[in-house]
């Protein structure tokens, strides 16, 4: 599968009686009906190792760009109106700020590693507690409740997979718990955030800004409010869009396919 296509439905599965394995490019599997596919005896694989660095980089790129108002600054710098630079054009500090990571899987952990180098105070919320050494290596503190994390964070980074439990995980209530100076960054799936609530929160100063690599749908309808807000950066699902990572994804997919076809254990089987 490349970028979630072709669509794998009952009809397709029925017409491919010898189908053994579906290898997905990327790590998200929410576009696939896992139960249906399993019922046809077809194995599935994703590419978790390939995507993590690149996606973590995207998260950090968005965090920094939003904090320092990079896109706005660029527009100011090239604008035909600028007669000289605005000395009062200010962003917010990243070094020493508090980053709350929601979803501390492979990608979330790589973000923590990067954020630590910026001397950020790292909080995380996850289904399960990470091991103590892993926590210590990045100086991360577990937040039993997501509320706890939201209230203390200057930057909230959402790095969960989309499941029925994480659908609209961040809604009106969660945003109101965040600091009014906080930034929300989403590199997971658009549907994890209640977009309508986000628009309101951004328009009324409930939170400072948002940076979204993912939305629902992608792309957003051209008249969507999010496209016009100055304090929003949207990027076109960049997470794995580098030549190196797309190549590694393909490589990981090939490894999985060959393993499945040869009856060997698959490196990244999704059960």
């Amino acid at each position, binding site marked *: 599968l490349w970028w979630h296509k072709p669509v794998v439905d009952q009809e397709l599965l029925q017409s491919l009686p010898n189908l053994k394995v579906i290898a997905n490019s990327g790590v998200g599997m929410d576009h696939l009906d896992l139960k249906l596919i399993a019922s046809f005896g077809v194995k599935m694989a994703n590419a978790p190792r390939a995507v993590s660095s690149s996606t973590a980089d995207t998260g950090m790129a968005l965090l920094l*760009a939003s904090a320092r108002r*990079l896109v706005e600054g660029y527009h100011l710098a090239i604008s035909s109106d600028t007669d000289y630079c605005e000395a009062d054009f200010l962003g917010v500090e990243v070094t*020493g700020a508090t980053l709350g990571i929601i979803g501390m899987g492979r990608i979330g952990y790589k973000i923590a590693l990067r954020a630590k180098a910026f001397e950020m105070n790292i909080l995380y919320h996850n289904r399960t507690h990470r091991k103590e050494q892993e926590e210590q290596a990045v100086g991360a503190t577990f937040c039993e409740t997501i509320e706890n994390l939201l209230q203390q964070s200057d930057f909230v980074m959402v790095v969960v997979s989309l499941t029925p439990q994480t659908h609209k995980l961040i809604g009106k209530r969660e945003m109101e718990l965040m600091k009014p100076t906080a930034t929300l960054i989403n590199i997971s799936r658009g549907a994890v955030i209640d977009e309508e609530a986000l628009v309101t929160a951004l328009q009324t100063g409930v939170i400072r800004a948002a940076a979204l690599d993912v939305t629902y749908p992608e792309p957003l309808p051209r008249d969507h409010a999010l496209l016009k807000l100055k304090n929003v950066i949207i990027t076109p699902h960049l997470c794995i869009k580098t030549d190196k990572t797309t190549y590694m994804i393909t490589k990981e997919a090939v490894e999985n396919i060959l393993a499945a076809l040869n009856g060997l254990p698959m490196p990244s089987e999704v059960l």
Partner: protein
Amino acid sequence: MESQELPYVLTDCIGGRHGVYEDHAEFLKKHFSLITMKEYLENKKLLGEKIRAIYAWYHKPVIDEELLRSLPNLKIVASSGVGIDHLDLNLLSRYGVKVSNTPFIVSNDTADLGMALMLASSRRLVEGYEMAVSPDTEYFPADWLGAEVSGATLGIVGMGTIGYKVANRAKAFEMKILYHNRNQRNKEEESAVGAIYCKKIDDLLQQSDFVLLSVNLTPQTHKLIGKRQLQLMKPTATLINISRGLVVDQDALVEALQNHVIKAAALDVTYPEPLPRGHPLLKMKNVIITPHIGSATKKTRRLMMENMMESIQAGLTGLPIPNEVLL
């Protein structure tokens, strides 16, 4: 004691686009009689004698011989930021005026911005944003790619406080780090960030995927990166400048970008600032320019102001000056 007059400090202006921030001015006025250039010019004779310090915010006011002659009791100039290339240090020294800057306060923010520019450029963040919000966009093409930062080679030219902080951050992205500096750093410092010294800048230029400039502007670093240096860089490399516009031969840079000699550039500084509106750099898709926001965060600017105030107070009372700039 309460009736003692507060020391007279000259500044360019308060508020507006480049003046001292209103909330900063409020704080400063508790300690100084803050006089704007406008007020000074309206009452030169009286105020000229009284002014004992200049609070130079954003490289203003311009301090020339004429001004120095009319401020006979001037003891110190406190300059915001770390760069002092806009000050004539020899001239100030001749008039017995001390100078201070704010070197360390700006380093975290500037290193952060260097990383922000590197990531934004390599992942084509600005182009991506335009695509995401453009009225013409119907879908996001799958073959639209950027370049990976993780695992790439970063060459840092100028490994001072800021350069070293960039190295610290880049290490967490598993980057290979090369550096060129007037002096080699000691072994512990090098191994802490995994940085390899390149005695010759050419070696760094030839091996780097990203070249980041964090030197100060001196006669030696003026046009440090010119046509020859750009040609030594990989055609897939990106130049990032967070130092001063004049460190780069800008015309050579334009040519190099136009002819694909290097891949892209990300510049927080140019010469002049801002660039004239028709300048080719403003139109190139592979160039990101930001309006000199290296230290532009609320917290840092506040700390800068407090540092400058302390330097002025020390300068006026004859105490050792924090962050004094020596010739």
